[in-house]
């Protein structure tokens, strides 16, 4: 793949990722105006006592379409984009046949993933 085509592909992946996260955050926000942050769009019973900063139990809260959970999923998608971008760069350098920068980018990705896992 030519460097230019790859750049366009990475650019598209990033635009789609950012678009998805912005949509989720926006939908969650509008939904919160309708049923409250810890309500449910399908009218299910909710445990409104958990703090809004708690990202736990996301899948079950997404299941009842809780506005807070939708926004949280959008934020998590956003926070993951830099990692995806570094990972995509590994593929980009490899496809250009640039061994030096494939290794350097893999090292950066490793340090990044290690600090995400360790610094918690």
């Amino acid at each position, binding site marked *: 793949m030519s460097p230019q085509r790859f*750049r*366009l592909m*990475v*650019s*598209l992946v*990033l*635009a789609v*990722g*950012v678009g998805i*996260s*912005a949509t989720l*955050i*926006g939908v*969650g*926000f509008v939904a*919160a*105006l309708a049923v409250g*942050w810890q309500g449910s769009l399908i009218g299910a019973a909710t445990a409104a006592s958990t*703090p*809004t*900063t*708690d*990202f736990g139990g996301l899948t079950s809260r997404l299941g009842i379409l809780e506005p*807070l959970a939708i*926004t*949280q999923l*959008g*934020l998590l998608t*956003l*926070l*993951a*984009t*830099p*990692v995806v*971008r*570094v990972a995509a*760069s590994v593929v*980009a*350098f490899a496809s250009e046949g*640039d061994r*030096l*920068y494939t290794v*350097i*980018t893999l*090292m*950066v990705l490793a*340090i*990044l993933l290690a*600090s*995400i*896992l360790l*610094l*918690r």
Partner: protein
Amino acid sequence: MTPQADLGIFVVSVCAGLIGSLAGVGGGILVIPALTFVFGVDIHLAVGASIVSVIATSSGAAAAYVRDRMTDMRIGMFLELATTTGAVTGALLAAVVAPAFLYVLLGVVLLGSAAMHVARLDEEMPPAGPPSRIAAAMKLSSSYPDRRLGREVPYTARRVPLGFVLMWIAGVVSGLLGIGSGVLKVLAMDGAMRLPMKVSSATSNFMIGVTAAASAGIYLGRGDVDPRIAGPVALGVLAGALIGARLLNRVSNRAVRLIFLPVLVAVGLETIARGLGFGL
């Protein structure tokens, strides 16, 4: 938050995203004071929102900067080796070093850099020349298409060891103090490595997202990210960054310097104030 406050936070965030994407910084210097002083948000939640804002600035502008070849991926990745190891060092040092003195020191360094930045204000392009041996070996020479000048501009990284050390220090500082990571990165690339200002800004913009992503887990785990605040901040910053990313290639390097300068001075003053005990 009332709908009026949400709207206000959104508008401030659009400005932060716009300035941040043009200047290569995260916009925390705008987001944190606005949230705490104007909207009465708890400082921890404001810092959590600012981490989201850094990543939103970086990601929002990224698609355009990658497509337009504004970000130098090689220089960014090479220097990212220094910043990430620096950040880990900083996080480890945080338990041992008293930060008050470091805040003041960093603030003085930033204000000194601001004076040097003023001296470079009218320089549209750093002087050209053959790449150094390290720059050649590490492939730190490239070119970018400048729409303002209407031509392809070649550049090469100067003083690579100095730039690498400064980037490591930038990593230590952001790991230790959690501030100024964007301005230090721009200063290292523009001031020390003599890259074109727009390339410095776009490359810093890419790098700050990676640095922030490394520590985002801490803030999430601590309960510092409240979607009710971080949501409107993220949307506003993304919108601002999308606009800024379209502008960067069209404005002059001098204009980018003029946008960067007040950010640099503000971060310098804020850092000194924090070190002296009356900041945020």
